């Protein structure tokens, strides 16, 4: 395993900037996840690391070795494809052996390493099957074993779980993460599924429009989003459109005066996480913000209850209440009071 350095990597197709000046460092043994909506450039970035796309500018270094212009077969990066891309005419064992044969590993050792790799993904004994005789989850594990068998410098995962059903996805998520930690793999994964990203990553990179919006741990992204895009994309937020009148004072377009922390005067938005808001039948004392409102909509999500509260004709707030004994759960149409401390909200200037 080795570290991966991406330096101001860009890819342009005519006038379209697929990737703009992306710089990332992945430490040895680190699991980095590129997260973003489709078309944000995350897959293009990954494919440039794998060598399938030639960058317009910038450099890729794998273990300190510059590989920017090397063809894929000279890079030693193991990739797991979204469609698994197993060779349909080869057995599971032959699939896993392919990369080793290309590396001219002696026959006897190939057999041993194939078995090791298959045991690693708990597929021992299925080496003689053809890919089409396996379930989706098993095929996915073969793809993983095949990429690991070559002992790659970096493991690249391109939406590896998106073809699995929801239940299986949760299991495989944990499985891949455990394997990565056990083997100390340097890994880069691309996904649009934030839950997947949050469970698996050491660090996350949020991308949109080809550019990196924020790099950080789960906590960084959730608690201190660097911009409105990240606050919106990671987790849920209510956004109040309005104006920062003075640092610490925000007035919504609906006319609400809200206390906040910081902010420079001018147009902006105030973001609030739904679980940071308290809701009660009576006004809440001791909170910087306490506002009356009316419940407009409730949906029951199991662990959470999602409550939408109308605060003014232009402002609606989402509140999450944990589904516990004694939790205050109002009914639609009921007048309520919501409140939150100034520090719970974040202000983004336009």
């Amino acid at each position, binding site marked *: 395993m080795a570290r991966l350095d991406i330096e101001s990597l860009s890819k342009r197709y005519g006038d379209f900037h697929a990737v703009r000046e992306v710089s990332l460092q992945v430490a040895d043994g680190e699991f980095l996840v590129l997260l973003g909506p489709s078309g944000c450039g995350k897959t293009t970035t990954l494919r440039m690391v*794998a*060598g*399938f796309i030639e960058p317009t500018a910038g450099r890729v270094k794998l273990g300190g070795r510059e590989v920017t212009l090397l*063809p*894929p*077969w000279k*890079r*030693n*990066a*193991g*990739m797991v*494809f*979204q*469609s698994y*891309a*197993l*060779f*349909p*005419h080869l057995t599971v064992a032959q699939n896993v052996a*392919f*990369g080793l044969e*290309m*590396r001219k590993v002696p026959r006897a050792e190939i057999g041993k390493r194939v078995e090791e790799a298959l045991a690693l993904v708990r597929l021992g004994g299925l080496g003689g099957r053809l890919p089409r005789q396996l379930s989706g989850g098993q095929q996915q594990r073969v793809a993983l074993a*095949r*990429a690991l068998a*070559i002992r790659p410098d970096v493991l690249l995962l391109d939406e590896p779980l998106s073809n699995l059903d929801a239940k299986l996805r949760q299991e495989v998520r944990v499985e891949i993460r455990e394997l990565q930690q056990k083997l100390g793999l340097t890994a880069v994964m691309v996904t649009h599924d934030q839950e997947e990203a949050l469970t698996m990553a050491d660090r996350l990179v949020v991308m949109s429009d080809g550019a990196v919006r924020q790099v950080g741990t789960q906590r960084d992204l959730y608690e201190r989003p660097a911009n409105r895009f990240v606050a919106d994309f990671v987790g849920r937020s209510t956004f109040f459109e309005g104006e920062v009148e003075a640092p610490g004072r925000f007035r919504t377009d609906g006319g609400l005066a809200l206390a906040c922390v910081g902010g420079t005067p001018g147009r902006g938005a105030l973001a609030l996480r739904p679980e940071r808001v308290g809701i009660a039948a009576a006004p809440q004392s001791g909170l910087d913000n306490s506002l009356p409102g009316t419940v407009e909509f409730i949906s029951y999500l199991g662990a959470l209850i999602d409550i939408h509260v109308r605060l003014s004709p232009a402002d609606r707030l989402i509140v999450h209440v944990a589904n516990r004994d004694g939790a205050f759960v109002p009914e639609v149409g009921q007048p309520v009071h919501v409140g939150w401390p100034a520090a719970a909200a974040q202000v983004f200037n336009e």
Partner: protein
Amino acid sequence: MNAFAVLRRRAGRWALNGAATLSLAYILLPLIFVVWLAFFRQEIPSFPPEGYSLRWFAAILDQRKFVDGFSLSFQVGVLATGLGLLLGVPAALCLARYDFTWRAPLGSLLLMPLIVPGVVLGTAMYVFHVELENALDVDVIGTFYALVSGHVVIVIPWIVRLVTASLSGVDRTIEEAAQNLGANRWVTFWRVTLPAIRPGIVAGALFGFVTSFGNLEMSLFLVGPGRTTLPIVILQYLEWKIDPTIAAVSVVQIALIAIAMLVTDRYVKLARVV
């Protein structure tokens, strides 16, 4: 209402099966009669047969021109198919994989020999050969190589068509996976792409060979003295005689093609490619 719907569906199925049976009979009946005829004892085909015998099969072997014609057709077919593969498979890869200005017209051009009447094709080639012979001052008209090169033209459409069809079913990421695992373009082609499109190649080669083997119209313009393909031998024989020898020759031909198809089908399911 429900009973009516069931009735309608059943009537529909009957109509479909009936139409299919009729079409199949339309295709098969002449073949059945030819096979039947080959075993008639009398020289002038007439119904009902006076008796049955295998003498016409023996008669084939007594006449050198049938044996020679068969051998020539076979050689031409094999050679034309081989050359057709060398040209057609890369052409199909190119058409399926790369987007270039003349792709669509080139694709149509390569399939054209399927549509152009054999006589037209033959005339065009004959004229071309005459010009070529005049220009280069070497023998072209009526040579074995001229015949083979003509047949390559009618073999190529089958190979291009069937290989293109099988390529469209191949997930391109398996090639990327191979490269990611350390295979260069060449190894990727041999170890991954080629096995994936093998059904298309085998089927294309088979159909190309059958087309070449049975071609009459175009070959009429390309053969030279003492060098006649089997279909032409049959035609010439028919001008003088109508004894069941021809039927026997046809039976041998049908049997060979049927065997080739059955053997191929064991390795590659033809129904999946064609």
